[in-house]
């Protein structure tokens, strides 16, 4: 009986979908696109890692666990991930607590510094670490130290700085939403501030802390940009997979390493999404939230402020040293100032710049619109497979970029879908990898909007596209615009997935940067880095200016999670 009614429900949804051909077409197109550009590459990865010459034969997988050389890279990846997620979340908590819960000065500045690593190319921080602590680094030389930044210390340092902003944004959100009256109630009953913090504030933020830790862990595990520059002999999975594919042309090995990366990241993503995030104690009441309990006690405030100033100065120092490095003649040898690196970037890299910006300008609107469509369909429409659509569209949030890149080569290197070597494959990688953030933002905004507004539109006779274009999109404009900015920024700064699909015909700035690092032209690499930052900042400022002219509401802040 229950199965029959469920079947009837599906049948009815299907019948209704058939009567609305526009909606049906859109659903089919999106389902097809998600299957082809998200699921199919993953299937190919699994195929190539577990089958050999048409037979099930996981010989590479077995080899992986037999040979210390291989499984060591998994241990390394997990070690780095563990350290980075714990340290990164702790740093993020200091910043988030300082900004939301105390009355320290300069909050906006701290917030800006805390999110800076998000808009910069991933390995800029690795470059900075080399400039400061490398063999001829400023600090190494100044203190006459004999140490080696390459390896575990470098990885932990750079990835912590690169990924604590994610944790910061989650924790800032969580801490600012804790109802201050709960803390006031604790104080009212005679608890000290410390006790209130330990027994109320901290437990209430535990789900947020867990979420943040897990997401940083995923990001660290899948990081490619920093390890490829600074891992030294401490080999991690992403870089191993990259070498297997681009150095040894061993696709089955690359696929196997991808699969090994995929399992922990997907597991952690599932835990975060379906377990931890549901434990949240934060209730959104729609009531304007209070200002919150702000600590003014000097013995808490000043140590916190000191720590934040130290960390912020350190981040600024790293960006500063790269900026300085980009103007030096030959890093480590001749530190006299010159503009030749930038001239070099504009001469040798001019075409890369054109390619990168063109690709970004194509991928950004496609990805933005597509994410809004998907968010709209999964929140507002009933059709068979709606849940699956939501799940698949969010999948690439957890799939490591290296896996996506290898999957795309495996999936799209043979006719009829031979896309390798074209700009299309790069655009597809950007579009399908960067949608989840926009989708989540849009879903969150749609949930705040009375469905009656859109129902009124269709009740008045507006078809799908009119309702979407005239009513929905204007109402979720902030999510749409911030997703555009986000996708554009990622197009300019991403490396891990696209490094596999770039070709002689279509190059990207980040790949050029990596090449300069390979050639030990660190000053040139630094110049590339700052050119990218300049383009990104220019785009953000332009966008804010345009948006400011059109919408008085302004733009939602850039976000990662």
């Amino acid at each position: 009986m229950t199965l029959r009614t469920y079947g009837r429900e599906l049948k009815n949804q299907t019948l209704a979908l058939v009567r609305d051909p526009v909606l049906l077409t859109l659903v089919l197109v999106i389902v097809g696109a998600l299957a082809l550009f998200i699921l199919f590459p993953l299937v190919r990865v699994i195929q190539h890692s577990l089958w050999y010459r048409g037979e099930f034969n996981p010989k590479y997988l077995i080899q992986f666990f037999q040979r210390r050389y291989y499984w060591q890279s998994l241990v390394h990846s997990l070690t780095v991930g563990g350290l980075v997620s714990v340290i990164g979340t702790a740093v993020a908590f200091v910043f988030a607590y300082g900004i939301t819960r105390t009355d320290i000065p300069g909050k906006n500045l701290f917030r800006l510094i805390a999110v800076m690593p998000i808009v910069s190319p991933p390995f800029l921080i690795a470059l900075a670490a080399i400039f400061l602590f490398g063999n001829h680094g400023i600090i190494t030389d100044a203190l006459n130290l004999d140490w080696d930044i390459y390896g575990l210390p470098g990885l932990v340092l750079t990835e912590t700085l690169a990924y604590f902003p994610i944790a910061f944004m989650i924790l800032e959100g969580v801490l600012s939403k804790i109802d201050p009256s709960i803390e006031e109630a604790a104080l009212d009953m005679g608890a000290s501030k410390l006790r209130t913090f330990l027994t109320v504030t901290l437990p209430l933020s535990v789900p947020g802390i867990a979420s943040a830790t897990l997401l940083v862990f995923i990001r660290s595990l899948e990081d490619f940009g920093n390890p490829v520059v600074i891992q030294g002999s401490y080999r991690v999975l992403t870089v191993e997979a990259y070498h297997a594919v681009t150095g040894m042309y061993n696709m089955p090995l690359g696929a196997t390493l991808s699969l090994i990366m995929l399992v922990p990241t997907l597991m952690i993503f599932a835990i975060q999404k379906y377990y931890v995030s549901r434990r949240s104690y934060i209730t959104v009441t729609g009531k304007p939230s209070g200002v919150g309990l702000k600590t003014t006690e000097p013995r808490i405030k000043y140590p916190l402020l000191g720590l934040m100033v130290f960390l912020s100065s350190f981040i600024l120092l790293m960006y500063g040293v790269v900026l300085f490095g980009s103007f030096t003649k030959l890093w480590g040898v001749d530190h006299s100032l010159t503009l030749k690196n930038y001239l070099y970037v504009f001469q040798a890299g001019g075409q890369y710049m054109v390619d990168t910006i063109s690709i970004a300008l194509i991928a950004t609107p496609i990805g933005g619109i597509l994410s809004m469509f998907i968010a709209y369909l999964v929140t507002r429409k009933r059709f068979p497979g709606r849940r699956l659509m939501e799940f698949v569209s969010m999948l690439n949030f957890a799939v490591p970029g290296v896996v996506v890149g290898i999957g795309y080569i495996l999936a799209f290197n043979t006719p009829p879908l031979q896309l390798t070597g074209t700009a299309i494959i790069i655009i597809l990688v950007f579009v399908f990898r960067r949608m989840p953030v926009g989708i989540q933002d849009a879903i969150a905004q749609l949930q705040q909007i009375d469905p009656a507004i859109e129902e009124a539109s269709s009740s008045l006779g507006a078809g799908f596209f009119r309702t979407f274009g005239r009513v929905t999109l204007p109402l979720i404009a902030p999510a749409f615009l911030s997703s555009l900015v986000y996708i554009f920024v990622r197009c300019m700064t991403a490396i891990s997935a696209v490094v596999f699909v770039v070709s002689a015909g279509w190059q990207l700035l980040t790949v050029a940067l990596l090449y300069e690092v390979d050639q030990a032209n660190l000053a040139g690499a630094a110049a590339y880095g700052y050119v990218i930052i300049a383009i990104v900042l220019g785009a953000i400022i332009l966008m804010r200016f345009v948006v400011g002219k059109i919408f008085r509401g302004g733009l939602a802040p850039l976000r990662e999670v």
Partner: protein
Amino acid sequence: MSVVYLDHVVKLFAAGTRREVRAVDDFSLAVERGELVTLLGPSGCGKTTTLRILAGFELPTSGDVYIEGQKMTHVPPQKRPTSMVFQSYGLFPHMTVFENVAYGLKIRRLPRREIKKRVSEVLSLVGLQGLEDRGVGQLSGGQQQRVALCRAIVIQPKVLLFDEPLSNLDAKLRKGTREQIRRIQKELGITSLYVTHDQAEAMSISDRIAIMNAGRLQQLGTAEEIYARPANRFVAVFIGEANFLTAKVLTAESDRVRILLLGQEMDVAQSGTEFKPGEEVDVVVRPEAVDIVPAGEGDADVEVLFSHYTGSVVLYALRLPTGERLEVQVANPQERGLLPIGTTVGVRLHRKSLHLLSKQA
């Protein structure tokens, strides 16, 4: 041919799971041309779901929806000749009053001048002329409600749907707006379905009322039919106040039932086909259908248990000799003074107002 016909509609939510809810259960209803039918029931009774199924926002799990004889069950909302006035109004917050009202006309590709003309006509119908260029956020709740009404009627739908349109207005405004809605609906002759949980609103505005409970249709009829001859205990209690007294059927004829109530033989003008002599029945006695008389002069003597004075009326709780409790409402208590608790008085039941319900109903 009915304009609207709902044919054995069933709607399950979370079908097949443990949280399955039978929101609408085997619901059938026909609405005739120009008629305003209200779906009335407590919250959660399935009235809004029924309306949304008719609009196309929800799909029935089984059953069908017809508008002017055409099957509409799986037709998307934008292709149905219906339009809805939403509880939350659903005005487009990024558009002006004019743009909101003109929205449906633009979809129908009417010429600009025609759109302008129709919008200003409909706005003056509700007294909103001159506010065309206002943002809807700048309007009062009552004005927003009227814009929503204009937007729905300007496209001349075959069926106009109202989803608790007055529930966000304050009590005084509600009365005036409901008269306005009824006046416009009659003037334009639009077939309408109206959902509310407010019985006074339903009774004053409707041609017929469909009482719903737990997804099922309880009774369909005019306000008077439903009040005077409720189909079952739920309807009797939901519409107004009701006492239930037990009586015994003596004889049952096609137009008249003789009962024994409080030791008196009484005739009740009601079809007796469902009753058998000797059967015990419930007699519905409305609190205002009882007179207080001096002790010994009425159908029975009662003791005053409690009195609840509200100014215009006083409500007495009385104990009958059978031990049953009877609530009686007396209008204008100033005229006769209040009865002290504990006194004994007589009661006389208005014979014509009595209504019998079988114990099974």
